[in-house]
C-alpha cells in the first residue's frame, strides 16, 4: 500500500477511477497497451511502472490476456465434476489455443461446464449451442437453479424488494433515525457472512464514531470461493436488498458513497446491479436529498478483473484505489483508514442484504433466529453432485445432515467429503456430517470452518492427493505474493505433492507439517493462513488414501 499512490489516485477518486480506467481500456484487446498504461500513469501523476505493475496483477488485464476470447472455469466444483476437459475440446474447434484462458469459478457450480464468452457466462448444456452463441443468434441463455427457504418470512429469499419498497423502507429508516437503527443492528447480533464472522454492528458503530470529511461503504461482491454463488444470487435477484443495506449503513455511519466491488466473472450481476441503481436514480433515490431529506448517497459499481485475493478487504480497497491489490497490514483497520484513507465499512453482500429485514422486523426478531452466537439465517450453495443443487436459506444452527440429505436430497453419486467454506475452508468427511450443525461455532469446534458456506462435493473417484494439489495450486495462483510463507510456501507445497504423485519422491511428513504451520501462523492474511486447515483435514481423515504418498520412517 502506498500512501502516495492512494493520494494521487484520490485526486480523481471514484468519479474517474483509475482502476476502472484500466479495466475499460483492457476491453477489446484483452489488455491495456504499454502506451495506454504510460499515458494513464502520466495523467494520474504516477510513475510509468505503476500502472504497468498494477495491470500485470490481474488475470483479465495482464499482457498474457491479450487476444483472449473465451474463458473456461477452472474452479474446484467444475474440476471435481470433471466437465471441463470435454468442454475445452469443443472450444478448441472454434478458437485458437491462445484465445482460450481460464476464469476461476463463474458461480455455475450447480451445473458446471462453465465458460465465459463475450462478457456472458454459460454453463450446463449451453456448450452445445456454441456456434449460435458465437454468431450471436443465441442470446437468451440463462441458468436456473432452485432457490429454497425453510422460513415463513425469509430474510434473503423472499419476494424481491421493489423500488417502491425501497422508498418506503427509506422513510422508515429516516423516521427511526440512525441511533435506533444502529441499536437494532446490534441487537440482531448479525455477524459478517464473508467468512470471518465479525459482528456487523461493531463495525458500523466504530466507523460512525470517527470524525471524517468523507466515509465509504463498500460492498464486497468479489465472491471468489469456488462453490459459492449465493452472493451472485442476491446481486442478480435481490439487488435492492443489497443496495438498501448499503444505504442504511451509510445513513448510520455518515457515509455518502457506496462502492460495489463486483467480480468480473459475474457480468450479469454487474449489469443487473447497474440497472437497479439507474432505477433508483430515476425515482430520486440516488444522489443528494433522498426523499427530500438532507441525506445524500451515491453508488458506484467497480468491476473486478480476475484476482481472488481482491475479496480480502484490504486488497479490495487497494484495488479500488488503482494500486496493486496486495494485502495491507492491520491496524489501521478499514473503519479507521479505509478507501482513500477514509473510514470505510466493508461488508459482504449477504450481510448487507440482511439489513432490510432487520429494519422491518427488528433486531430481536432476527436474533431469535439461529443460535445464540450465530443468529439469523445463512445462504448455502449446493453443487451439482446433490440431487437438488441450488441456493437455500436456512436458519443457523440446523443439523448439517439436514442440509446435505434433506434439503440437498443427498448425492447423485458416491461422495467422500464435502469442502465447506471455499478453498480456505475445511474438508468434512461424510462421516463427520452428522456431528455438525450449520453455524460458526459448531464448525469451528469440529475443526472445520463455515466460512461463506459454499459446499463442494469431492466424489469417491477423485483422488484426494489431486485435490490437495489443486488447493496448493489455487493458493499459488491466487496469492498476492506479498508475504513469504504464502508466496513461496504455496509453490513448495504444490511441488511436494506433484513430486509424490509423479513418483519422484514421497512427501516428507515433518516438512509438510512445518510448511503448514509456517503458512498458518506466519501468513499475513487468511489466504496463506487458511489453506492448511483443509489440507490437515484431508491428512487426518484420508490417511489411508494419502499414506502411499507419504515417506514412511
Amino acid at each position, binding site marked *: 500500500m*502506498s500512501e*502516495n499512490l492512494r*493520494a494521487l489516485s484520490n485526486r480523481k477518486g471514484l468519479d474517474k477511477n483509475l482502476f476502472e480506467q484500466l479495466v475499460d481500456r483492457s476491453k477489446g484487446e484483452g489488455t491495456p497497451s504499454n502506451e495506454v498504461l*504510460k499515458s494513464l500513469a502520466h495523467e494520474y501523476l504516477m*510513475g510509468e*511502472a505503476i500502472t504497468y505493475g498494477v495491470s500485470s496483477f490481474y488475470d483479465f488485464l495482464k499482457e498474457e490476456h491479450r487476444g483472449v476470447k473465451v474463458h473456461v472455469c477452472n474452479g474446484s466444483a467444475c474440476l471435481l465434476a470433471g466437465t471441463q476437459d470435454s468442454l475445452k475440446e469443443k472450444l478448441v474447434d472454434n478458437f485458437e489455443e491462445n484465445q482460450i484462458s481460464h476464469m476461476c469459478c463463474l458461480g455455475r457450480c450447480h451445473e458446471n461446464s462453465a465458460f465465459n464468452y463475450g462478457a456472458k457466462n454459460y454453463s450446463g448444456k449451453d456448450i452445445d449451442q456454441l456456434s449460435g452463441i458465437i454468431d450471436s443468434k443465441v442470446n437468451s441463455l440463462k441458468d436456473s437453479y432452485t432457490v429454497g427457504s425453510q422460513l415463513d418470512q425469509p430474510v434473503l429469499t423472499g419476494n424481491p424488494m421493489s423500488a417502491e419498497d425501497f422508498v418506503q423502507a427509506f422513510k422508515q429508516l429516516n423516521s427511526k433515525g440512525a441511533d435506533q437503527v444502529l441499536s437494532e443492528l446490534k441487537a440482531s447480533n448479525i455477524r459478517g457472512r464473508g467468512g470471518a464472522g465479525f459482528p456487523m454492528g461493531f463495525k458500523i458503530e466504530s466507523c460512525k464514531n470517527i470524525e471524517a470529511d468523507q466515509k465509504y461503504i463498500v460492498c464486497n461482491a468479489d465472491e471468489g470461493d469456488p462453490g459459492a454463488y449465493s452472493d451472485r444470487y442476491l446481486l442478480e435477484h435481490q439487488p435492492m436488498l443489497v443496495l438498501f443495506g448499503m444505504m442504511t449503513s451509510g445513513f448510520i455511519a455518515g457515509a455518502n458513497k457506496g462502492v460495489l466491488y463486483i467480480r468480473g466473472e459475474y457480468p450479469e450481476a454487474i449489469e443487473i446491479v447497474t440497472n437497479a441503481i439507474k432505477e433508483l436514480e430515476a425515482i430520486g433515490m440516488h444522489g443528494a436529498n433522498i426523499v427530500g431529506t438532507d441525506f445524500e448517497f451515491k453508488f458506484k459499481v467497480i468491476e473486478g478483473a480476475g484476482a481472488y485475493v481482491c475479496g480480502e478487504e484490504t486488497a479490495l480497497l487497494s484495488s479500488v484505489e488503482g494500486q496493486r491489490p496486495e494485502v495491507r497490514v492491520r491496524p489501521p483497520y478499514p473503519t479507521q483508514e479505509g478507501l482513500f484513507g477514509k473510514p470505510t465499512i466493508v461488508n459482504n453482500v449477504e450481510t448487507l442484504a440482511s439489513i432490510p429485514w432487520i429494519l422491518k422486523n427488528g433486531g430481536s426478531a432476527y436474533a431469535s433466529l439461529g443460535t445464540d452466537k450465530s443468529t439469523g439465517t445463512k445462504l448455502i450453495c449446493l453443487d451439482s453432485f446433490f440431487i437438488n443443487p441450488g441456493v437455500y436459506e436456512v436458519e443457523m444452527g440446523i443439523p448439517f445432515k439436514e442440509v446435505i440429505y434433506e434439503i440437498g436430497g443427498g448425492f447423485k453419486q458416491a461422495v467422500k467429503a464435502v469442502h465447506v467454506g471455499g478453498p480456505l475452508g475445511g474438508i468434512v468427511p461424510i462421516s463427520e456430517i452428522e456431528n455438525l450443525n450449520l453455524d460458526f461455532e459448531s464448525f469451528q469446534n469440529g475443526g472445520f470452518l463455515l466460512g461463506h458456506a459454499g459446499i463442494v462435493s469431492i466424489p469417491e473417484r477423485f483422488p484426494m492427493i489431486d485435490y490437495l494439489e489443486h488447493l496448493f495450486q489455487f493458493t499459488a495462483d491466487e496469492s498476492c*505474493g506479498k508475504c513469504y510463507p504464502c508466496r513461496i510456501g*504455496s*509453490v513448495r507445497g504444490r511441488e511436494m505433492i506433484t513430486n509424490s504423485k509423479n513418483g519422484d519422491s514421497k512427501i516428507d511428513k515433518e516438512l509438510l507439517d512445518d510448511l503448514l*504451520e509456517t503458512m498458518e501462523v506466519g501468513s499475513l492474511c487468511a489466504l496463506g493462513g487458511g489453506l492448511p486447515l483443509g489440507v490437515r483435514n484431508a491428512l487426518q481423515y484420508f490417511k489411508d488414501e494419502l499414506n502411499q504418498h507419504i515417506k514412511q520412517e
Partner: protein
Amino acid sequence: MENTVYINDQHVEFTSGETILSLLRRQKIGIPTLCDAPNIKPFGSCRVCSVDVALEKDGPSKVQASCHTPVTSGSYVYTHSDRIKKLRKNIVELVLTDYPKERFAADSPKKNSIAWITQEVGIGMADVRYESGETHFNNKPDDSHPYMRANMDACINCYRCIRACDEVQGEMVLTMEGRGFDSKVVIGQNEGFSESECVSCGACSQACPTGAITDVFNSKFNDATEKTRTICTYCGVGCNLKVATKNNEVISITAPYDAEVNGGHTCLKGRYAFKFYNHPERLRSPLIKKDGEFVEASWDEAYDLIATKLSEIKESHGANAIAGISSSRCTNEENYLMQKFMRAVVGTNNIDGCARVCHSPTALGMQRAFGTGAATNSVEDINHTNCMLVIGANPTSAHPVTGAKMKQAAMKGTTLIVVDPRETVLARYANYHLQLRPGTNVALLNMMLYYIIEEGLMDLEFIGSRTEGFDDFQNQILAINIDAMESVTGVKKSLVRDAAIAYASASNAMSFHGLGVTEHSQGTFTVQLIANLAMITGNIGRKGVGVNPLRGQNNVQGAADMGVQPHQGAGYLDFTNPEIHDLYQNYYGVDLPNDVGLKIPEMFDAALDGKLKAMWIMGEDVAQTDPNITKLRKSINNLDFLVVQELFMTETAELADVILPGASFLEKSGTFTNGERRVQRVNRAVPPIEGTKPDGQIVIDMMNRMGYSQPDYAPDTMLEEISQIVPFFKGITWENLAINGKQWPVAEGGVDTKIIHTEEFKIGKGQFAHFDWRESEELETNASEFPYIITTNRDLEHYNCGAMTRRTGNVDIVTEDVLLINIEDAQSNGIADGDMICVTSARGKVDIKAKISDAVKPGVMSTTFHFPEIMVNLLTSDVHDSEAKCPEYKVVAAKIRKSKGEVREVVG
C-alpha cells in the same frame, strides 16, 4: 498499568502507538528482519520478525509480526519461544529455496542480509529440506545505466527498493510485476534503468538487502576499510554522506540513516558524482603563466611571485586596486580566512563571493524586512505545514533531497502553489501553478498581496504587534492596476486570487524561493514582497511557516556569514560603524579599511576601467558562469595580475597568471552551513591529492608570507577563532557540532535555533515596503528586435559550470545543454525536435539543440549552462538587480532560427 508490557516476562514501559519491533530494538533485543528498513514504513512481508503475544500470563498466544503490530498494553511478548524460533527458521528455509547457491557462498554476513539472517536463525544452504523446484534465477543483469545495476537472481521480494523509490524519492520507477510466486521486481515497464524514469538517487540500491539492486560502486557490498562521515559539496541542502575508502581512495558513498538533514537519502550528485576528485585532469602543481604558457612551479615560487606582485600593486595603486572572490564551495573556515586575508593582510574590503550572482538579493531583502538574511525555518517543517508556496525554484533538480520531501508532501495532499515560468516537476503536482512571464515576479506577488487584502485575510494581530509600515503599504497595494498586472504576468487573475486565498487561509503556510526570484533586476524587491506575504498573513515564527530561500551552493549561507561581502565583516557586522571597526581591528590586531568595497560586477567594471589591477579568485569559474562573458573576459584581460585557486583548468583558470591547485571537500575538514543555517562538520575522507593543498592552507600560507601570522589550518582552532567574532557562532565548537551539526544562532553552551524571529524580529519590527513592477531593462531595450525570452535553469545531473559533474558518470546521463521550446514556437520557426537552432541575443549567439517541450509557454524558452561547448552565458545580459547587483540570468531577449551548424560567435 498504562503502557506497560512484559517482554520475555520482564516488565517494560512503552510509548503509545509504537510497534513491538521498535520497543524490542530499544530494549536491545535482537530480532531478525528482512523487509524492514530504517527510512520506509513497516510492510510486513517477510514475517521473520514474528513474535508470540499473549494477553495474559501463560494464556493462549498468537503469532504477530513485530514490525507492524503496535504494542498492546498489559500483553506478554515472547521473542524467542520455541515455535517462534522454528517459524523464523522455516521461513528463511523457504527463502533459501529461491536464492542462488553460489551467491550465498560468497555473501558476507556483515553486509548481506541473507547471510546475516541465516546465521541469526541458525540455518545454512545445506539444511534446506525442499527438493529443488521453481526459482527466479537466470535473469539478464541490467547494466544499461551509468550508475544503477540490477541482477534479480538475488532478489528476495522484500519490496524495500520499491518502497524506497516511492516513499523516499517519490519517483515510483520500480514495481512488482505479476502476482504470487511469479511476482518480480521490474524497472519501469520492465525496460531497465537507462530507459526508465530513474533519477539515479540510489535509494533503492541503499535499501536492497542482498545487492540484487546495487550500483557500479557496489556501494553497500564493497570491501571498504574505512568510513568517514562528511557533508556533500553540491548544494545547500547539506546532505550527510558516509564516504567509504580503501587505501586512501574513495570507493563509494552512502547516506547515513541517522542524518537529520537527509535520513539515508541523497541525490545522484552526492552519492555517485565523486569521481571528479582524483580525475586525471585535476591540477596537481602550482602553475605560472610564462609567455602565454602555463609552466609548473613550486609553491614557494608561486607564493613569492604573488606576494611580490600584490605588494607592488598595493604600493603603486593602493590596496583597493586588488580584489578577491571567495567561494561558496569552500568551508566556512576557508571563507573566513579569505575575507580576513583581503581585509587584514591586503587591506581592502574588495571581497565578494559567488553568492553575489545567486542569493545576494535574498540576504539583502530579508535583512531589510526582518534583519537577518537567512531561512527563518527548517526543512523538516515541510512535514508540519499546510501550504507550500514555491517561487522561482525547481528543487527536485537543484535541491533534490528537499525537493523530494516537498514532492512527498504535495503528493500526500499538502497544498502547493508554484510560481514559475516553466512547468517544473513540482508544478505538475501543484494545486495552483502560476506560470508567469519571466521578469514579472513583482507584479504577480503584488497581485497576491492585493487579493489577500481585498479578501480581508490579513493577520491583523500579527501586523499590529510585530510589523511597521502596513498602512502605507496597504494603500499602495490597493492602488495597483490589477488588470494591467494580469496582462503583464500572463496569469489569470482568478487563478492568482485562488492561490492567494489558499496561502492566506492555510493555518501554516511556508514559502520557498530560489534563483528564479533573485536573478532578476527586481530581485531584492521580490524577496521583500515574499517577506510581506509572510508578515501580512502572520506566517512567521513557528513551525511550518516562514520564508525559506533555497540556497544554491553548499555553503552560500556560510560564505556570507563569514563576511564574504564588501559591506559587512564576519558575522554581518557593519564595519562603517566605528565601534564595530574597532572591534575588528582589535581582534585581527591590525589596521583595517573602513570604506565599503566592490561587489563582483563592480569589480569587473573597475577592471575594465583600469582601476582594478589584480584579482584573486578562489574556486569559481566566472568565465563560464557569469553573465555576458564576452564583456567579462575583456575585463579580466585588462587586469595586471590574476590568481586562481582551482581544482581543474576551468575557463577562468585559463586566464590566470598564477594557478594554485586546491583540494576538494573530500580532502579537507571544516564546516559547511546549509540553507537552514545548520553548521555541519566536513571531515577529510582522504588526504589531498599529491601536489595540492586545502584552500584554507593556501590562504594561510599567503597570509604568513605577506607578514601576518596565522596558525596552520585546523578546523577546531579555526572555529574557535570564528566563534569569538561571529555572534551567532558563539556556542559552536568542533566537538559539540557532533554528527548532525547545529542551526545558528547558537548560544553559549551550544543551544541552537530551529526557527528564528519567534518573539521579535532581529530588527525589532518587521518592515513592510511596497514596490511597483518595472519591466526589465533588457526587454525594454531589446524586446523589439529579440522577441523571445530565454530563461536559464539547472539539471538534476549537473552542478553549475559542470567542472565536477562533467568529470563523473553524470555526463553519461545528461550529455549536453539543450533549449526547451514550445511546440508553437518550434513550428512557426520550422524547427523540429533535436534540430540545432541558432539563438542570438544583443550580446552574442550560440548554437544549441532544440527540445520541444510543453514545460514552457509560447514565447519563453529555457536552457541550462553546464557545458562549456555551448557557453550559454554568451547570451546573458549584464543587467543586474538594482539593489544587490545580482545578474539577471533569468531574462534574456533573444531571437532564434534553425541553424546551419556553427557553434559560437561573438557579436561586436
